[in-house]
C-alpha cells in the first residue's frame, strides 16, 4: 500500500519567508511524528500528534515553528520567518497507534534550504 508521503520534496526559500511542509501519513495511522535531520544535529524529534491533538511539542526549536493536523490525517509543519539554521531535511513518520513498541514509518522527507 501507499507509504508516508511528503511535499514538496525540495524547497528553497529566502531568509525571512514562511514555508509550509506537508505530510500525508499512511491511511489509518493515528500517531504522527515530525523529525528534523541536519548535518550538525543528526535526527531530532520536533512534535507528536495523536489524532488531531499534539500531546508533545517539546522538540519544536522556537515559536517560529508550528504544526497542525486535520481530520486525523494530513499534517502541516509551518516555519515562519525562516533562518539559515532551519535548513535541514524534515521527516514525517506515522504509526498505527502510539504504543512505544510500534514501528514508525518514515516519509522521504522535505529538503529545505534557506538562503
Amino acid at each position, binding site marked *: 500500500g501507499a*507509504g*508516508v508521503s511528503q511535499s514538496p520534496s525540495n524547497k528553497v526559500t529566502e531568509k525571512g519567508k514562511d514555508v509550509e511542509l506537508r505530510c500525508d501519513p499512511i491511511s489509518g495511522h493515528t*500517531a504522527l*511524528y515530525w*523529525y528534523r535531520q541536519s548535518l550538525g544535529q*543528526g*535526527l*531530532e*524529534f520536533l512534535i*507528536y500528534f*495523536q489524532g488531531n491533538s499534539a*500531546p*508533545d511539542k517539546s*522538540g519544536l526549536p522556537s515559536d517560529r515553528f508550528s504544526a497542525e493536523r486535520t481530520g486525523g490525517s494530513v499534517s502541516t509543519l509551518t516555519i515562519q520567518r525562516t533562518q539559515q539554521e532551519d535548513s535541514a531535511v524534515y*521527516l514525517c*513518520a506515522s504509526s498505527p*497507534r*502510539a*504504543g*512505544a*513498541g510500534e*514501528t*514508525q*514509518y*518514515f*516519509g*522521504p*522527507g522535505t529538503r529545505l534550504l534557506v538562503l
Partner: protein
Amino acid sequence: AQSVTQLDSQVPVFEEAPVELRCNYSSSVSVYLFWYVQYPNQGLQLLLKYLSGSTLVESINGFEAEFNKSQTSFHLRKPSVHISDTAEYFCAVRKNQAGTALIFGKGTTLSVSS
C-alpha cells in the same frame, strides 16, 4: 532523559567481511531499542527492534542485534556484508511509554566495497 551514542561515524569494509556497528544508550527508565537504515536517496526504514523476550533479534536481510542490559548496548552485526548493504544506519531508543519520540544516534555510514 535518554541518549544514544554510535561510536563509529564511518565503517568501511570489503564485501563478504563481517561487520559490527556499535550502539550504546543511556536511560534511567525502561526503553525499547531500534535500528533504522537509510539507503542512498531513500527514506528511513526499520531494520529491527528489541521490545522484550530474547535479547537477540534478527532482520530479514541477515543483520542481527543483541540487547545487553548490563553494558547498555545494542550492537548491530552481520557475518558477511554485501555491496547493497551500503547505507547509513541509525540506532534509536524509545521510552517504554505511549506517544514518545525516537531518540536517535548520529548514525554510522557503512561503506561496502569489492
